[in-house]
């Protein structure tokens, strides 16, 4: 593949993607979140079609119109999210649509089981082909997917973050299987954030950044440090209007918070006027902690204190009463009522203060909406306009306004600038900075390292559900955060 590009509307997900795969070789594709890796894979798999660039397979230029075509050409993709059919047996999952047939075109179940067993034997895994795939562990689901790829004689196998949910023994078994695949001349494309695994397993590495190809090298020619630098390598701009001001006392304290299977033993605190960033890779448990603090998800152990008082029970209403505001990651689904006007959305979290008796005061609602829209420089036609007519940046301002109107002591912002254009981005940053200067404690979750470095007073880095480092502003660099997030250094 060379110079492949893909845009969605005005957003260019992939500007210049290039990669060359060789038989019998494991090739790592690396890059930060949003670097365009997934888009490249989906073009490879025929899910998307490239807008530009060339895609050559065995010397032939190709353009696949759907996943069925790429599968026929010998490309198998093992996606991060499970694509198995819970209600079908393992053997049927492997052979769906290609089941061995007996007379009258009926499915030959015995043959299907036999072939499944043979493939599992080659892979050295022990899974009963007769069982339903419902309830298989993530590792076993991947093995079924790999068995599916083998049954199709796939020559290219793509694995998107295959180790993210695996234990160390399971990772080892996966490595053995990958070695097995390579010995058969299969080209393996491996996407992972765990750099040590990449170095252990892959022979070649391609690095992407901001939708573009950066470099391809033999893995032996690179150090982890060089890889990280190529992945991030960006200049910090003036997007981040960070001002220094006095800190107040402690507002939020989280003690040994644990939710089985999601995060473990997480402790930290946030002071008034301080911006604390939770950093880490997608899936490291950052958003889940925010959800637990705000009372959306329950936790199994540990405690959350607001201004020294323990938050009892799990309910967003209690969290709100204790003075927490939560700007969720997915504003369209969780942050806004899309069909409501700006006015109603802004007032939604503060209705208690706006009512007289049982009636909501329309005039008070309007006044609140006007006040905040002006303060946040919201661009809108009329206040009654439905928020789904606004741009992403303006929608985010409405969500912020909703919480600011409740005058919170702590505000949690999850990916505050995702999908927002650069101009509005800096305004959102200014709003957050302003809040901190007024003594509000801010807990920010962001996948964008420049944003974390530009805004945060302190960075808490997570990896696989655990805090691996707390880095003060002075010591925080892209490299130090990336190293902690990928598990290279375990700091305190």
């Amino acid at each position, binding site marked *: 593949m060379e110079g492949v590009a893909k845009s969605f509307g005005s957003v260019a997900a992939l500007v210049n993607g290039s990669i060359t795969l060789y038989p019998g070789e494991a090739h790592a594709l690396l890059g930060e979140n949003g670097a365009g890796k997934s888009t490249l894979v989906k073009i490879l798999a025929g*899910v998307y079609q490239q807008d530009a660039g060339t895609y050559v397979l065995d010397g032939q230029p190709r353009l696949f119109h*759907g*996943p*069925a075509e790429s*599968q026929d050409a010998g490309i198998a993709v093992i*996606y991060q999210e*499970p*694509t*198995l*059919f*819970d*209600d*079908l047996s393992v053997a*049927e999952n492997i052979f*769906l*649509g290609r*089941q061995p*047939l007996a007379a009258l*075109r*009926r*499915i030959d*179940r015995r043959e299907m089981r036999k072939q499944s067993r043979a493939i599992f034997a080659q892979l050295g895994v022990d899974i009963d082909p*007769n*069982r*339903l795939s*419902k*309830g298989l*562990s*993530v590792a076993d689901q991947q093995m079924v997917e790999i068995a599916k790829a083998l049954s199709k004689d796939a020559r290219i196998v793509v694995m998107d973050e295959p180790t993210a949910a695996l*234990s*160390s023994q*399971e990772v080892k078994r996966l490595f053995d299987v990958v070695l097995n695949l390579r010995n058969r001349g299969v080209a393996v494309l491996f996407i992972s954030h765990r750099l040590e695994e990449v170095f252990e397993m892959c022979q070649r590495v391609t690095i992407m950044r901001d939708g573009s190809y950066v470099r391809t090298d033999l893995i032996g020619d690179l150090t982890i440090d060089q890889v990280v630098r190529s992945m991030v390598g960006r200049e910090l701009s003036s997007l981040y209007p960070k001002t220094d001001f006095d800190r107040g006392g402690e507002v939020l304290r989280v003690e040994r918070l644990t939710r*089985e*299977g999601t995060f*473990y033993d997480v402790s930290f605190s946030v002071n008034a006027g301080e911006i604390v960033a939770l950093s880490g890779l997608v899936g490291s448990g950052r958003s889940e902690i925010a959800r637990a603090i705000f009372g959306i998800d329950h936790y199994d152990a540990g405690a959350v204190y607001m201004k020294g008082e323990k938050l009892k029970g799990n309910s967003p209403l209690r969290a709100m009463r204790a003075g927490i505001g939560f700007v969720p990651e997915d504003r369209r689904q969780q942050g806004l009522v899309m069909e409501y006007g700006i006015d109603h959305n802004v007032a939604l979290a503060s209705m208690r203060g706006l009512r007289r008796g049982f009636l909501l005061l329309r005039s008070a609602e309007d006044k609140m909406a006007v006040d905040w829209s002006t303060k946040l420089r919201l661009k809108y036609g009329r206040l009654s306009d439905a928020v789904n007519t606004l741009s992403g940046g303006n929608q985010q301002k409405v969500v912020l306004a909703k919480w600011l109107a409740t005058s919170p002591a702590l505000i949690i912002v999850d990916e505050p600038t995702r999908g927002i254009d650069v101009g509005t981005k800096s305004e959102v940053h200014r709003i957050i900075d302003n809040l901190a200067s007024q003594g509000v404690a801010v807990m920010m979750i962001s996948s964008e390292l420049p944003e974390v470095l530009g805004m945060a007073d302190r960075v808490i880095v997570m990896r696989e*559900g655990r805090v691996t480092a707390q880095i003060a502003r002075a010591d925080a660099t892209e490299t130090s955060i990336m190293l902690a997030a990928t598990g290279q250094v375990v700091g305190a």
Partner: protein
Amino acid sequence: MVTPARSHRIAETLTRFRASSLIAIILIIFALASIKSSGFANLISIQQMLTNAALFVLLAIGETLVLVTRNVDLSVGSTLGISAFLVGDLFTHHPGTPIWLAFVVGIGIGAVCGTVIGFIVTVANVPSLVVSLAGLYIIRGILNIIGLGIQIEPSAISLSFQKIGFETFAGIPWIFIIPAVVALVAAYFMRSYRSARELYAIGSNPDAAALAGVPVKRRVFTAFVISGSLAGLGGVLFLSEFATVDATAGTGYELLVIASCVIGGVAIFGGSGSVIGAALGAILLQVINQALVVSNVSSFWDSALAGALILFTIAVDRLLSNRASVALRLKQGAVRVE
């Protein structure tokens, strides 16, 4: 404590377990009703029950195909009605119509209804609940217009055709033999053919089915056409059984059909369930109905019992699947913590 391995086995045998437990429940009710009334277990009474169940068995087969794909067809009662009425009308105006032609016309009418609904569901991408609900009313509305004040009389229907409704073969009513054969064929098909397995795949995980190259729209469309065709066939059988038809024929059947499927173990959100289970569910509902009649219990209890049965089956399902998932979560937790 249920170990993961054990709970999987429970889940796997659930379908088979369901069929045998349905048969067991049917037999128990049978035994109880026979103690209460000696006439319950005689041949005539059993034949009557099979006759009553026949149409629901037939419709439940088609409904199962649709439900398995995570869709629903609410139009089957209306489709049955319009087919019964139009075929009766055909006999009225053309007394010499051969029986085979009556079947072809009835099935054809059903197929047309199923085609239209399946087309709107798949091509226009409208939820099947909405489309088939609209179909329910539109088809019934058309039937009301063309059937206004008309009653098909038994005298117009040829006797040889009516015999399907009351004659028996080896003691089994013909009207039950036809759905039973369809059920066996459908059950075999659902187990052993690629396209049928793809119906389960679609209902189990629609996105993954598309990624796996399954022609999702074509399969769902076909399921609706089959469901409609079987409802059309049901209309023909309805006419042979009752010989008198008006515009209200088949009203309310759709919910009884769905109840039969759910009791028979067809998952309402798709992916699992068997045709035989659904057919047994339909028979069970009729046996209960009949048992209440001989027990001199008010027939109002009939609906309440059907509802209770639905809740009971769902509760058992939930219990088993919850146990399985709890066991799994514990297992995964243990692996993660290390």
